[in-house]
């Protein structure tokens, strides 16, 4: 087992009347981005807070390479986190917010300026936090998580408040961090974004695990794996040609054909030999949003 793998075992959190997290077990692999998905109130934030020793589990445990967060020697050098309902003092500048963490963590003050550069906040470094926009606040949180150059990153809804460019920036950042061999766990509601970002997903609803695995696998088991979209004026001829490939083509409401069971190259070749004219030929990944809604059907809703 890698020393950076996150392992969650039978984690349970019982609030007075509500079981926010219910016997949840999953693991997060290194070198990959794992999306942590679930409807509102599914228990994502609670799980992440238990992972980080902020909330005490009713039972079960969560470990980083076998060690609980509170037992890590230099926690910030091991794990960086951005959490919901966490903030900075309104009257403190962004740079001082980071320096304050450096001092408590035994990091040099210069790290504050380095991470400010990484997240692009240097121009606002000496401004007070109360003057930051939502996106700037989110970037400051990410900067704080990067201070210790951690092997593991945990982010709760990090895309909140980021503009399209900011979201793209974060996607590239997290992918780059994962490709360096780090472990990245991100919770989010933005399923389209997750489909672009995540290698693996962990889906929870009502505190329970619904599905975990690589994105493609999860999509595949739900029958919405990769398919090819084809547009042609000679639909009947193409269907006939495709049936010889054991591929099935179904007509879509927009007039295109959705082909399952053959690669784009094979379809193109079949069309070419059958002299069928093609206007569009595109491979499409399954739709995470659809799968998510199917999987969590009936389990969503505020508890």
């Amino acid at each position, binding site marked *: 087992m890698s020393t950076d793998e996150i392992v969650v075992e039978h984690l349970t959190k019982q609030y007075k009347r509500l079981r926010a997290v219910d016997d949840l077990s999953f693991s997060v692999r290194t070198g990959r981005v794992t999306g942590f998905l679930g409807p509102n109130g599914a228990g994502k934030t609670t799980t992440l807070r238990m992972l980080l020793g902020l909330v*005490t589990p009713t039972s079960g445990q969560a470990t980083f390479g076998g060690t609980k967060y509170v037992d890590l020697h230099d*926690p910030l050098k091991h794990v960086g986190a951005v959490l919901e309902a966490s903030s900075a*003092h309104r*009257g403190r500048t962004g740079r001082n917010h980071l320096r304050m*963490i450096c001092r*408590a963590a035994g990091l040099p003050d210069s790290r504050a300026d380095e991470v400010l550069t990484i997240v692009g906040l240097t121009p606002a470094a000496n401004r007070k936090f109360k003057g930051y926009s939502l996106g700037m606040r989110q970037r400051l949180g990410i900067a704080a998580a990067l201070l210790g150059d951690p092997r593991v990153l945990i982010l709760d809804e990090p895309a909140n408040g980021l503009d399209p460019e900011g979201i793209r920036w974060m996607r590239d950042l997290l992918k780059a961090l994962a490709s360096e061999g780090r472990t990245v766990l991100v919770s989010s509601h933005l399923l389209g974004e997750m489909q672009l970002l995540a290698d693996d997903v962990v889906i929870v609803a009502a505190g329970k695990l619904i599905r975990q695995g690589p994105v493609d696998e999860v999509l595949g088991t739900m029958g919405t794996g990769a398919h090819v979209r084809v547009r042609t004026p000679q639909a009947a001829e193409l269907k006939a040609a495709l049936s010889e490939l054991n591929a099935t083509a179904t007509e879509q409401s927009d007039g295109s054909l959705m082909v399952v069971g053959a690669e784009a190259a094979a379809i193109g070749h079949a069309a070419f030999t059958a002299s069928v004219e093609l206007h569009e030929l595109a491979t499409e990944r399954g739709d995470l949003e659809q799968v998510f809604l199917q999987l969590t059907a009936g389990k969503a809703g505020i508890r």
Partner: protein
Amino acid sequence: MSLGLVNAELFKVRTTSIWWILGIVLVPLYAASVLANWATFATTDPATTEGASDVQAEQVQAALEPVNVATTMYTSGQYFGILIVVLLAAIIVTSEFFHLTATTTFLTTPRRESVILAKFGAAIVVGLIVWLLTTVINLIVVPPIMSNLDVPTQLGSADVWRAIGLNALAFVLWAILGVGVGVLIRSQIAATLVLAISYVVGSAALQLVFFLLSQWVAEWINKLQVLVPTTASQLMISGTDLPGNPPRWVGAAVLIGYAAITGIIGTLITKRRDIS
């Protein structure tokens, strides 16, 4: 206690405006205290104690002895200085919850008792700084006042220096008490209000309660007055043992007791509480 963490806590205080706001508030309050002490000693006439009980008369006589005038004058500013320190000490804790920085703090230092210990350390440092400033200014402005009152400056008297030292102890103990209350009452507004009101009004109200109880229930209850924290710290720094009062060490013991109780309970609660 990790010095790095104490340093980080002091950095937090330094990088927001609260310290200089409270500092500015303290300046006129301190000046008023010095002038009020001066005025008291300048106008109190030992001959006007007729009609008072024997013990009260003795107390007034004792308080007017040069050494007791000196200890009071050289510890001027204690009342408001401690009020400011106790509020700042509580805010060192409550601002973490008020400004939602507790998550960051406990992520950085998951051993929560270390954080609370560092906050005690930082509050003590703040208390000692305020004590040092008021004491240095007292040492400058009080000697001329003493000669105006026709009493010797007495800077060579051990009693005076002991009072100044005990004054430092009072600042330290109240700083600890403030952190403890801040941990117990997490709401910034509630904690500062409770501290300010019980410090300013509470001790007077409690003295009244004790007075009534001693009148109607039993005389000995009056001796329990020393359990009121403000009375305890007053007693602790008085120059010599005043007649009719418990010895000074009782005042110190009472304050240490309060500081220890709030500190220990507060730390235990913080260790158990969910941060969300």
